[in-house]
């Protein structure tokens, strides 16, 4: 059983059952004081964390977004409050600026991934091996400011004046973003997989500031907070909050290469990274592969094997761990429970993060086919080199291309 994944599904299912409203995402306005009054109006009487998140991607600050977190045990009550006070709930919903339903063309695994409009935070994965010629390593960040509401013994809602953050925990959503592996608790919370908060604990007055260092992997991620209040009517009491809708690190805008038919076949899928999710790329690379495969097939009658491109939400693709023994390179594929071959200790794919590189191979390796394959690779792609038992190619947009 997957302990956190199972719990998450249960919680989301519970929320969906209790609340017909969409996720509680707040725009930068209204102010937190207005949120307190709106929550009073819907009649909810329970602790609430107000989360203000500001993503910083490649050094550029993006729009701040606010959202609410409630204790898992209070979710039903929150939903009931919304239903019991429809007018106030409507005003709250309006204030929260719910996004319209948007069909995310990349959302091909809806059981394990959330639509873009239902995410509390969406940020691009970090790329720690980005070459200097492309700007150097980039670690994306999300700055969080946390404020808390609680109910005093008289039933009045108030701002928690201060307290201790005992823990901030990040947990991967199992099977999200095409990674069908890593369901153990250790792997669920692995910093290389989910990133890290800095600081993770600490005392605060009024609000707690922390920064999420975004991982290189695309993942859907959940967040818990354990708070001990200091000062105020509930001094010394502990509260536990869970985000009701997840954060995500994702590369957006990738497309799946269509089925090849006579000229190429899609291959390379594994249990850990299934075939439906391992051959996504930017459209120019897809166009180049299709054109290349057509030309090669016409010239030689052979079929191109299209192996890994990128996962459907991009990010680091931990295909396995390569090692060289006595001059022979061996790949130990990533598999469930093998931390050495998954989640960052693997060097099988250093690229394949942004949909701009592909692994291609011929089917029938004759000298004649080999020469034609190679020349057509050069005529269709910017960089080409042999990598183990296949060719690695880069699109013109690849950040891994050295400057000309």
């Amino acid at each position, binding site marked *: 059983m997957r302990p956190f994944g199972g719990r998450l599904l249960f919680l989301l299912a519970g929320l969906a059952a209790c609340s017909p409203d969409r996720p509680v995402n707040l725009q930068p306005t209204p102010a937190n004081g207005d949120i307190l009054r709106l929550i009073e109006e819907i009649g909810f009487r329970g602790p609430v964390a107000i989360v203000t998140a500001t993503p910083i991607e490649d050094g550029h600050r993006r729009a701040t977004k606010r959202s609410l977190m409630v204790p898992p045990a209070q979710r039903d009550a929150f939903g009931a409050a919304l239903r019991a006070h429809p007018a106030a709930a409507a005003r709250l919903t309006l204030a929260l600026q719910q996004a319209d339903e948007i069909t995310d063309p990349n959302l091909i695994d809806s059981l394990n991934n959330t639509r873009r409009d239902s995410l509390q935070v969406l940020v691009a994965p970090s790329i*720690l*091996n980005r*070459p200097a010629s492309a700007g150097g390593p980039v670690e994306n960040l999300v700055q969080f400011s946390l404020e808390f509401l609680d109910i005093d013994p008289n039933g009045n809602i108030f701002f928690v004046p201060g307290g201790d953050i005992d823990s901030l925990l990040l947990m991967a959503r199992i099977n999200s973003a095409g990674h069908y592996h890593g369901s153990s608790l250790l792997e669920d919370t692995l910093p290389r997989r989910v990133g890290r908060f800095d600081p993770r604990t600490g005392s605060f007055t009024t609000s707690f500031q922390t920064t999420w260092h975004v991982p290189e992997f695309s993942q859907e991620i959940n967040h818990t907070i354990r708070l001990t209040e200091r000062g105020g009517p509930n001094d010394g009491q502990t509260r536990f909050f869970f985000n009701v809708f997840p954060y995500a690190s994702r590369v957006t805008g990738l497309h799946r290469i269509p089925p090849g038919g006579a000229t190429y076949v899609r291959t390379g899928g594994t249990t850990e990274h299934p075939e439906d999710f391992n051959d996504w790329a930017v459209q120019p690379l897809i166009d180049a592969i299709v*054109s290349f495969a*057509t*030309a090669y097939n016409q*010239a030689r009658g052979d079929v191109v094997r299209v192996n890994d491109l990128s996962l459907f939400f991009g990010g680091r693709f931990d295909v396995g*761990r*390569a*090692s*060289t023994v006595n001059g022979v*390179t061996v790949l130990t594929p990533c598999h469930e429970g093998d931390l050495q071959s998954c989640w960052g*200790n693997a*060097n099988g794919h*250093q*690229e394949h993060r942004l949909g701009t590189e592909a692994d291609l191979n011929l089917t029938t*390796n004759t*000298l*004649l086919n*080999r*020469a*034609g394959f*190679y*020349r*057509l690779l*050069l*005529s*269709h792609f*910017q*960089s*080409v*080199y*042999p*990598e*183990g*038992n*296949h*060719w690695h190619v880069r699109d013109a947009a690849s950040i*891994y*291309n*050295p400057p*000309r």
Partner: protein
Amino acid sequence: MRGPAIIGAFLLVLTSAARAQFPSWYLPHNQVQPTVTSAVSLDPATGDFLYVYTVANGAGAQQRLAELYMDLKTQISSATAPTDWEVLADPAGGTVVWGASGPVDLAWTELHPLDPPSHASEIAPGATRTGFSLRSPCAGTGPVTFFARGYNHEAQPPQTDANADSAPAVPQWRTDAVSGQTLGPGDCSTVRDWGNRRPGVDGFLGVVNFVSGDALPGGVPVTVQVRFSRSGETVLPATFHAVLNSQDVTAQFVTSSRGDRVAVFPPGAAPLKSGRNVLLLSVDGIVPGTTHQATDSDRFTFTLP
């Protein structure tokens, strides 16, 4: 019967070697000294432009010339290669590649199972091959870029430390080639100059491959590609008339596979001349929205060194 093919002059093209820094493990392909000469004519069967290239590898080259790539921005009708060479081309355009083929060099041994072979037909230092050709409905609109590469094994990047996070700095292949420019088909999807006489009839006729007043390169054939009917106007092709520097050259124009009127004028010979050249083109058509016949007469100029 189409008009006679007109053979253009040869063109000597300078090349430049890339000065990239390659990783120590990398095996370069740019140790060649290519010279590409070109000739352009009209294919009597189709009226399309026929570009024929001759490739030489300088005596000081360190490698045999094994591949010639040409970046094109237009479609081609067909391509050919000399004996024991092959051409791989996409009719929709892109990069055309000619590569040595035929018997594999007996001295060659493979470095790894993907290593492309070396062929006996590669152009040795000091040698020349001809017969590399392209056929296209498009005239030249300017020089096209080629990349010549010598034979070398394809090196595998070394396997880095098991925990390494760096991607191999494999150079872009065009950096590892000797590039140059030569004649070739350009983008002929749009007309570059419809003339400037009368709005109602200017769409009868236009020049595809240069703009009036352009300075064209010397020592190479001047190609002219004329297109009719900008917006679907009714044009009477039989009335087409062309005068170059006061000499009637109508008969030198033929109809290409895409319906354009095309001609090639050899350099250094009348009616071309050094300095300003004047090309008068005209055709009759029906003025849009009327039944009146009118003539679109346009005057295009170009200069030659």
